[in-house]
């Protein structure tokens, strides 16, 4: 199995659909392990829905520690690449 290519995408402060677009762009750029940081509550629903629709995996959902401010880290494993 090849190495996972990680990416950190910080979309705190942006509203839907921007966090999901940033996630999809990181996936399209070839990242296979993406940490998306977002504080739009809608991301809770739509990141999970994106994973279901595109065949990828929401590995974990972790609220950020207080010293890093509000927000959630979504760890997504890209196993399917959507055709261009």
């Amino acid at each position, binding site marked *: 199995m090849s190495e996972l290519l990680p990416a950190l995408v910080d979309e705190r402060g942006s*509203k839907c*659909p921007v966090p999901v677009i940033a996630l999809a762009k990181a996936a399209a750029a070839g990242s296979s392990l993406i940490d998306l940081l977002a504080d739009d509550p809608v991301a809770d*629903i*739509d990141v999970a829905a994106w994973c279901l629709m595109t065949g990828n995996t929401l590995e974990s959902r972790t609220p950020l520690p207080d010293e890093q401010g509000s927000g959630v880290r979504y760890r997504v494993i890209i196993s399917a690449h959507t055709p261009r």
Partner: protein
Amino acid sequence: MRTLLDAESGPWHPVARATFEATVDAGWANPRARYAEGRRAAEILNLAREQVADVLGCRTDEVSFDSSGAAASRRAVAGLAIGRRRVSRSVATSSVEHSSILQAAVGVISAGGDSGATHLSIDVDADGLIDLTKLAFIAGAEPAFVAIQAANQETGVIQDWQGISATLEPVGVPWFVDATSVLAHGEPPQKWSVLTADAPAWAGPSGVGILAVRTGARWRNPDYPSDAFELGRVPGMPSVPAIAAAGAALVAMRDDRIERAKTLAGFSAHIRKVASEQIPHVQIHSTDVGCPHITSMSFLYVSGEALASQLDVRGFAVASGSACANELHTPSHVLAAMGHLTEGNLRITLPWNTTAEGVDAFLAQLPSAVHSVREQFGAIDL
């Protein structure tokens, strides 16, 4: 030319308009007044009550009118909570009820203070359906009532009414049903304890809701002591012309509903087919077995508000359930409960007079409208 794809707010059926215009002159008076004009208004009001009872299959004296479906639903919740408070302070609702019902349920629970009362929520699956086994479990806890809608206002998903009443009846838990979404083109549910509905859904005027309370149901007027309007269930003088228009529209819509439902179902199936075939990354939340006039769908990488505005500019009036499309920035709780996508949402409810030309014009524009919003967000190649 404008094409309306949001039937939740109208337009009025011609029968509603004609009835309204006729009764502004004939039915303006206080229906409780003892003079001739008042008796006339009371006759018109009672005719509307008979029309609604006929469509619902209930007794005339079980039907009252309120100022909207939402107001009627709040009154249904509050009245059942009071009527059954000796049995239970807890209430149960599905997670996909209209927001007025969920808000009213939260309200009666918080008004109960530290009584140990809880709001039991009945989840839906990814198809929007409640699990009857879980319903039986919740009914076993004997809540004051269970609120489950006949069909969903956003997705058109129709619940298994026979299964619901067969589960609740033996344990004696009242079923409160919001029938708004099925009354325009479908069969009304049966065996409920309390039923509510909103007249704009069947092309009646806004400002009229139905509150039907089954004889013997443990519902009490939450405003007790109250006046005697609407059989003592809803205070204040009702708008007789608007109610007459709502009753006449309901009967007119019922009389040709089978044929119309077939036509609208065909349009909706066509919309879903074209959207899924021609537009990448779409999730459709509605199916052919739901309400014939409703289609909800969401597009990835699209702002629902931007898409609705884009379509508005192109001549189409259509609603969105995305967070960005409402003032509270909250996404549709219905889609969230189903675990479905909420961004880029369109909520299409076809009016009774939708034409094939209107649908075709919409479908000719939808793919490029989605594309143009994705372009704005730099999300074409995803």
